[in-house]
């Protein structure tokens, strides 16, 4: 099979890998927003007792791996997924795939990822990239968040594929099993499945820490951070929130803008104008998240540090929670075309 893999840059790594892998097997309609929406990628969770790099564990998207799994499944595409105990076997398997012309999605850790800037190299193990070729001892790598492709030596690739710690990738590889074009009708149905599942995750997930109630919960917590943690540590916590929300990989506004783009693209498959209106609510929500980030920056830079400033910060999240609740309620009432 000739190597025809095409690198397309995306905002988020797993969306990008999903999009590029599905395109490589002939799903020409797929785009990053469609992959994100069909995979029900939008989420919010704050896990109070867990710490990441000493800060709060907050996520704006669904669990790593789910977007590819759900999107492929919704489109009726079978997936090969494998982890390994032996690095040698993991490399052999990858080499065999590449030889047969199969681009391969890999889960990796970013700490040893040599082409990343030092400032971004934390011990984070749920990054995704595609290996699409090999020249001598070097692997050709398509990392969706990067503008261009990169090269990793076999040693460098093994190191990131066998990074250790939380969410250790264990050499995980994944790719669609066979080339299979997908009809517009399948996309249309997959969109409905994706939206309904996202409504469920954001509105009806049990417990106070996730979905729209998780946003409210976090807003109320933030108001107590100043007293509980002191200004400096509270500032570091807010900086972590902003990084999870805005850093490379999110498309801005905690993935809310990508979701807005998804609803607009969904409109091409379901001619229901309420999708366009609801898309605007997500744009508004993303904008509010960004205003909150500006407020947070004022706090962690030490410019505004009074309790009133923390209250304003918390209130942003309460407002966002209400807005997203309303938007998802509207989404759950959309009349889908059969």
């Amino acid at each position, binding site marked *: 099979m000739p190597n025809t893999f095409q690198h397309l*840059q*995306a*905002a988020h790594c797993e969306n990008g890998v999903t999009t590029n892998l599905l395109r490589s097997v002939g799903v020409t309609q797929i785009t990053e*927003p469609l992959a994100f929406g069909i995979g029900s990628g939008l989420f919010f969770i704050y896990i109070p007792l867990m710490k990441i*790099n*000493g*800060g709060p564990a907050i996520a704006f998207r669904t669990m790593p791996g789910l977007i590819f799994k759900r999107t492929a499944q919704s489109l009726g595409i079978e997936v090969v997924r494998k982890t390994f105990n032996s690095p040698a076997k993991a490399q052999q398997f990858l080499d065999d795939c590449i030889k047969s012309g199969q681009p391969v999605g890999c889960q990796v850790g970013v*700490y040893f990822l040599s*082409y*990343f*800037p*030092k*400032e*971004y*190299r*934390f*011990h984070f193990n749920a990054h995704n990239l595609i290996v699409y070729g090999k020249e001598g001892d070097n692997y050709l790598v398509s990392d969706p*968040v*990067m*503008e*261009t492709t990169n090269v990793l030596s076999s040693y460098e690739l093994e190191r990131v594929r066998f990074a*250790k*710690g*939380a969410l*250790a990738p264990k050499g995980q590889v994944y790719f669609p099993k066979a080339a299979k074009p997908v009809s517009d009708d399948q996309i249309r149905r997959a969109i409905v499945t994706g939206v309904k599942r996202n409504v469920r995750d954001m509105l009806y997930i049990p417990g106070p820490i996730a979905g729209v109630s998780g946003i409210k919960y976090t807003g109320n917590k933030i108001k107590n951070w100043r007293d509980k943690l002191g200004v400096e540590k509270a*500032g*570091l916590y*807010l*900086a*972590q929130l*902003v*990084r999870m929300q*805005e*850093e*490379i*990989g999110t*498309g*801005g*506004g905690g993935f809310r*803008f*990508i979701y*807005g*783009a998804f609803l*607009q*693209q969904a409109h091409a498959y379901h001619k229901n104008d309420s999708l366009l209106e609801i*898309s*605007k609510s997500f*744009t508004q929500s*993303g*904008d509010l998240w*960004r205003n909150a*980030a*500006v407020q*947070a*920056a004022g706090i*962690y*830079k030490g410019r505004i540090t009074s309790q009133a400033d923390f209250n304003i910060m918390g209130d942003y999240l309460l407002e966002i929670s209400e807005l997203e609740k309303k938007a998802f309620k509207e989404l759950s009432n959309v009349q889908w075309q059969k």
Partner: protein
Amino acid sequence: MKKDEIPQDPSPLDKFTKEVCYAVDESGKYVTELSRGWEVKASALGITWEDIDKKVADAKQKVDKGELSPIAYYIELRVMDLSIVSAYTGFWKWTIKRHLKPSVFKKLSTASLQKYANLFEVTIEQLKNSSVNA
């Protein structure tokens, strides 16, 4: 966010890549656009690293004073914690905690020291004399 409001601030990503942002154009349609960075998040990353640097300096001071072994310094320098060190070296967390005591560290076998040296990407000599080499 509107397309013409996408920030283009200096960022640690300069020289590496620009990132994809989603925003709406004049007609309200979503488009993608490359962004250099945003000052708000560059400073979030900045203060995170300032905090790490502070922890590294604290650890170094404790190593110099003989309160902790050099392993404590390298754990901070490499942005690790006990769980991560344990996952890479295969030592139990409580074993690593013992190795943080200078008296225990001094008696470590070459094999054990080598495991730490590999992880921290230094030689055993550098590991032992971290206060000189840091």
